[in-house]
């Protein structure tokens, strides 16, 4: 399993390299630059600024310096728009925020979605099943950019229970709404997938075998049915985990959490080349790590996958 993880990690190096190169040139293709503004800077000052950030060099030299600094110093360069800040600083400030509520959002999704799906499957076509299905449809038509304002309307403006934005060092009351807004539609999907997966598994011949052995229903559900039921849920969660931790751009901006999603938007507006590149690299590394974790989780559950990894 360790060997497999190492092999996968090595394979990510060329991927990252090509990603850096593509992003690097793509950004340079976009019109404008970090220091263009409505009132152009005097040419002499502009030349000084460009020299200060190394932007006067030919592109391939810039790229080479960039990669060299990452590899040898783990330095993703200075921010072009926010003076005195490096990309490392910005990520160190924003990433923990996004990671924190992304994590709680994932907990919310799994801790609620799986039991909901299980109950709906066990009580198929009952009141609870219909409630769950209704909720799933409801959350599909209320994506996070509709849900977030509604949450604020209810819990901040009407009831006054929760703060409508900000972070406050990650106090729990500031985490709840971003986590819920981010997770709700995934929660519904997880519940739906769990339900149909469990229904399918409960009809499987090996569940009938377990009944014929005289096992209690609870043992059958927990020992025999739950593990295989979770396999499709894990597959589904693989890209969702990444999205939850990284792609929460809207939630970051709406709740002014100061997470990296907000930084990404800012950087794109200001053509802050180094910040955009740094975040793109962060996202792809996260994608890789989370996919690997999901694959390992798959292997932990399914012995067939496990023997394939050896």
């Amino acid at each position, binding site marked *: 399993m360790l060997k497999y993880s190492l092999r996968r990690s090595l394979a990510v190096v060329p991927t990252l390299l090509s990603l850096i190169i593509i992003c690097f040139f793509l950004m340079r293709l976009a019109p404008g630059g970090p220091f263009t503004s409505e009132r152009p800077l005097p040419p002499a000052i502009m030349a000084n600024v460009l020299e200060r950030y190394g932007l006067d060099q030919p592109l391939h030299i810039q790229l080479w310096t960039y990669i060299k600094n990452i590899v040898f110093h783990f330095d993703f360069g200075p921010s072009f728009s926010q003076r005195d800040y490096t990309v490392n600083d910005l990520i160190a400030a924003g990433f923990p925020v996004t990671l924190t509520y992304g994590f709680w959002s994932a907990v919310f999704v799994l801790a609620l979605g799986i039991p909901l799906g299980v109950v709906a499957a066990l009580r198929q076509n009952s009141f609870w099943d219909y409630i769950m299905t209704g909720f799933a449809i409801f959350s599909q038509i209320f994506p996070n950019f509709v849900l977030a304002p509604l949450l604020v309307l209810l819990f901040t403006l009407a009831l006054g229970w929760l703060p409508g934005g900000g972070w406050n060092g990650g106090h729990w009351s500031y985490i709840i709404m971003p986590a819920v807004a981010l997770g709700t539609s995934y929660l519904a999907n997880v519940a739906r997938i769990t339900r149909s997966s469990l229904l399918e598994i409960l009809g499987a*011949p090996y569940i*009938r*075998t377990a009944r*014929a052995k*005289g*096992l209690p229903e609870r043992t059958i559900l927990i*020992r025999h049915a739950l593990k295989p039921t979770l396999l499709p849920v894990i597959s589904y969660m693989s890209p969702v985990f990444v999205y939850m931790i990284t792609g929460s751009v809207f939630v970051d901006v709406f709740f002014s959490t100061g997470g990296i999603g907000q930084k990404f938007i800012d950087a794109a507006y200001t053509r802050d080349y180094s910040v955009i590149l740094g975040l793109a690299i962060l996202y792809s590394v996260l994608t890789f790590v989370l996919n690997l974790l999901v694959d390992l989780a798959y292997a932990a559950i*399914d*012995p067939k996958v496990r023997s394939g990894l050896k």
Partner: protein
Amino acid sequence: MSLLSVRDLTVKFSNRTGALTALNGISFDLARGERLGIVGESGAGKSITGFALMNLLSQPGFIDGGQILFEGEDVTQMSKKQVRDMRGNRMAMIFQDPMVTLNPVLTIGQQMVETLRAHRKLSFEEARQIALVKLKEVYIPSPVERFEQYPHELSGGMRQRIIIAMALLLDPKLIIADEPTTALDVTIQADIMELLLEMCQSNQVGLILITHDLGVVSQVTERTMVMYAGRIIENGPTRSIINDPQHPYTQGLISALPQQTQPGQRLKQIPGVMPTLSDMPSGCPFHPRCDHATETCKSQVPDISQSGESFVACHEVHRLQKELASEAAQ
């Protein structure tokens, strides 16, 4: 007292408009250690009978009436807990396809040990020792290694041996085997059947073998029951069912065996198909396909009566037997 005594067992399947009758008041007995074959076409009610005996019918199927007396207790009246205590313990079941009847995410050992511990107070190690002994009994090579393996690491024949070992774990009084060799390679089928026979004989276990293979039935069972459209139409010693079938349907089945046909001839067949549950004919369910059907057959369901060594549900069986005898005399 017989081990199993089934009386007027009726099983229905509910649907939108009401309920369809899948088993129509069947009755039979099984003595201790006796081996009974149930044969018939797909949909005749063989497997339903097996499931009903274990009280394993799942929605929309349900037992609508009758008794299943197993060691004197009525399975249809048992509480959930009593049923659970019986299953896998006194009455065990072997299913059709060993590729899908073992849980793929649990080891062989886990699946055997949990069965033992569900019925007896045993430590894991004690249960493991029993499981290993049973694995050895069904000729599994290197049982200690197999115990740790997952189903996908084993061949189909090996898995069916393991399922047989699992059925025997708690020394049941009755094993219901539902087409235990259908999904297996022909070369392995005979081995598995032989093993099943040996295990039943050496442990004094009663066997109900559900199959459509008359060859297998004649190899393993002492008595055979022929089912058609949810009814038992003939029940007798296997030898006489094979050599001297009484019911026109059984006769058709036997003469359809390839051994009964000369090379180069077309295989015999019974014209028509078995009626579906929703489209049952009146009277004897076999009359639309029967060459000997009379007006009585079309209106009245035949009772079971003795003919030769068997019990047969046919109005015309005595007339047919006489005709056969006079033909033979001429």
